[in-house]
């Protein structure tokens, strides 16, 4: 695949992920819903799986995590933006690892059982892993410092919190793999304007939201 095309894909899917975390995530949090779980198991896993199946380029999801995390840092509201940015970047890296380990080498061999199992494992691992990474990195960058015992005693809660993410992931991944197999394509002459346009729109909306809150 052309590097330029892959880069544009990373930018647009990473921006869509970051946009959903900043705008939809904040809205879900205001409604008192478990925003972290819903954002990871539906939006993050959905966008990561879709891009992985469509582009089939290892490394792309890591890049998407970096773009989405950067966008989250541009919107320092709606909860702990630093924790969220770390979690998003870690989720991109964890998805990359688990998808590589679990996916069949031949793309057509995604049976329904495999899709369901992958959804549960990847969603759980990505959510719990991202949660753990924030619990380690956030204290490190704060003035309080990191204490291992605080992490250890909270491990059962983190493992328990991933259950809902696993169940939702078991629906998201098969649904996204089904959608990804549909013949949807953009002509080359429309690809770059569309991807760059969507990415720029996401960044503009998030920055405008930041400025509106500041004002």
């Amino acid at each position, binding site marked *: 695949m052309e590097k330029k095309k892959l880069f544009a894909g990373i930018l647009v899917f990473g921006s869509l992920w970051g946009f959903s975390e900043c705008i939809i995530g904040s809205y879900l949090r205001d409604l008192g819903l478990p925003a972290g779980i819903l954002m990871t198991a539906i939006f993050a896993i959905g966008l990561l799986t879709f891009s992985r199946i469509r582009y089939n380029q290892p490394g792309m999801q890591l890049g998407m995590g970096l773009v989405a995390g950067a966008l989250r840092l541009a919107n320092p509201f709606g909860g702990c933006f630093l*924790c969220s940015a770390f979690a998003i970047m870690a989720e991109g890296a964890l998805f990359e690892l688990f998808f590589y380990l679990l996916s069949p080498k031949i793309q057509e061999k995604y049976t329904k*059982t*495999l899709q*369901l199992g992958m959804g549960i494992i990847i969603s759980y691992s990505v959510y719990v892993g991202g949660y753990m990474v924030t619990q380690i990195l956030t204290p490190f960058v704060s003035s*309080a410092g990191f*204490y291992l015992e605080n992490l250890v005693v909270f491990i*059962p*809660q983190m493992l328990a919190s991933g*259950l809902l993410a*696993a169940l939702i992931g078991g629906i998201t991944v098969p649904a996204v793999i089904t959608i990804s197999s549909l013949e949807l394509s953009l002509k080359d002459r429309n690809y770059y304007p569309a991807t760059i346009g969507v990415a720029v729109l996401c960044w503009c909306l998030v920055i405008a939201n930041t400025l509106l809150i500041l004002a």
Partner: protein
Amino acid sequence: MFMGKEKLIPILAILILILGSGTTLYVHAAQNNTKSITVNEKTYTVDQIFFISQTRSFPSLDISGVALDDLLMKAGVTNPDQKTYTIIGADGYQKTVIWENIQNGLLTKDRQVYFSDLPKAFRIKDVITIEVR
């Protein structure tokens, strides 16, 4: 190789669901439902804490409560800047902070701790203990 994954992945998925369910049951069973707060090994009700301690507010967060530094001094902490403070919630969530953070912290009526100088990960709900070490 592929046949291996076809069998292994559903088993791993089931194990993950068992792990998630088991830890959920454990977390609910281990939940501490006490309404009092132990500060430096002394137990107080929320009303007592609000009676003995000075108030503090964070206007930007629209939150008010009692000043954690004043509460700890009233609870008999000496040489406070040489100690660390572990704040523990009913669900087991805990965070350790230093005196500088305590001076920017407050405890609300609904037993939630906030720090103006720390990320949201340091907000602890349903506080049951503040340990001094």
